[in-house]
């Protein structure tokens, strides 16, 4: 069965290889204020990029790098073709995507009522990734379950 909009199977491994270091970098940036000094933009460029910034504030692109890696890695994993991409896999894929979108918005609604103030920015940040994460977990869980043999 033809299934367009999918990447070759090997992208699954590539995705993991991109995701893991990016995730580590993301955690360092988020919780330990880590930045690569060489990714700090010179003052001139920074003020053009964001006119609202005070002159003393500098833009550092470490977080951009981490998020790009995390999203690219997750996309590669989520959209890599299975070894044998057939009609049941395609069905499971769609079903899992439906699940992921639904659960994602339920979580967002719950968080909207429970989390207030600046912490809500964190919710929005994690929410950027939850659709892909829930999809990957659910899709692989179902496929692994139906791998268990009855032979």
């Amino acid at each position, binding site marked *: 069965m033809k299934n367009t909009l999918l990447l070759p199977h090997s992208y699954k491994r590539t995705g993991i290889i991109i995701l893991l270091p990016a995730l580590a970098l993301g955690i360092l940036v988020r919780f330990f204020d880590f930045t690569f000094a060489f990714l700090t933009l010179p003052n001139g460029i920074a003020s053009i990029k964001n006119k609202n910034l005070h002159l003393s504030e500098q833009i550092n692109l470490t977080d951009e790098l981490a998020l790009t890696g995390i999203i690219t890695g997750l996309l590669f994993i989520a959209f890599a073709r*299975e*070894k*044998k991409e*057939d*009609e*049941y*896999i395609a*069905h499971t894929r769609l079903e899992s995507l439906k699940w992921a979108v639904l659960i994602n918005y339920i979580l967002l609604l719950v968080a909207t009522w429970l989390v207030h103030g600046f912490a809500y920015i964190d919710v929005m940040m994690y929410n950027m990734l939850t659709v892909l994460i829930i999809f990957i977990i659910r899709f692989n869980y179902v*496929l692994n379950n*139906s*791998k*268990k*043999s*009855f*032979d």
Partner: protein
Amino acid sequence: MKNTIRVERAILNITQQDLAEKIGVSRQTINAIESNKYVPSTVLALKMARLFKKNVDELFLLEETD
């Protein structure tokens, strides 16, 4: 809907993997069909019928609730 794939497979003495390879699908698909979690497309049903040399309605049977 129920099906007799597992029985037919036992008669031919082939594994889920063998059957999957013969009709060009993944083993998960055969497993999902046998455990009634997935209803295959007409194309797949016809391929199975051809392999087992049976009519499709001998492999797949409607139930009261269908």
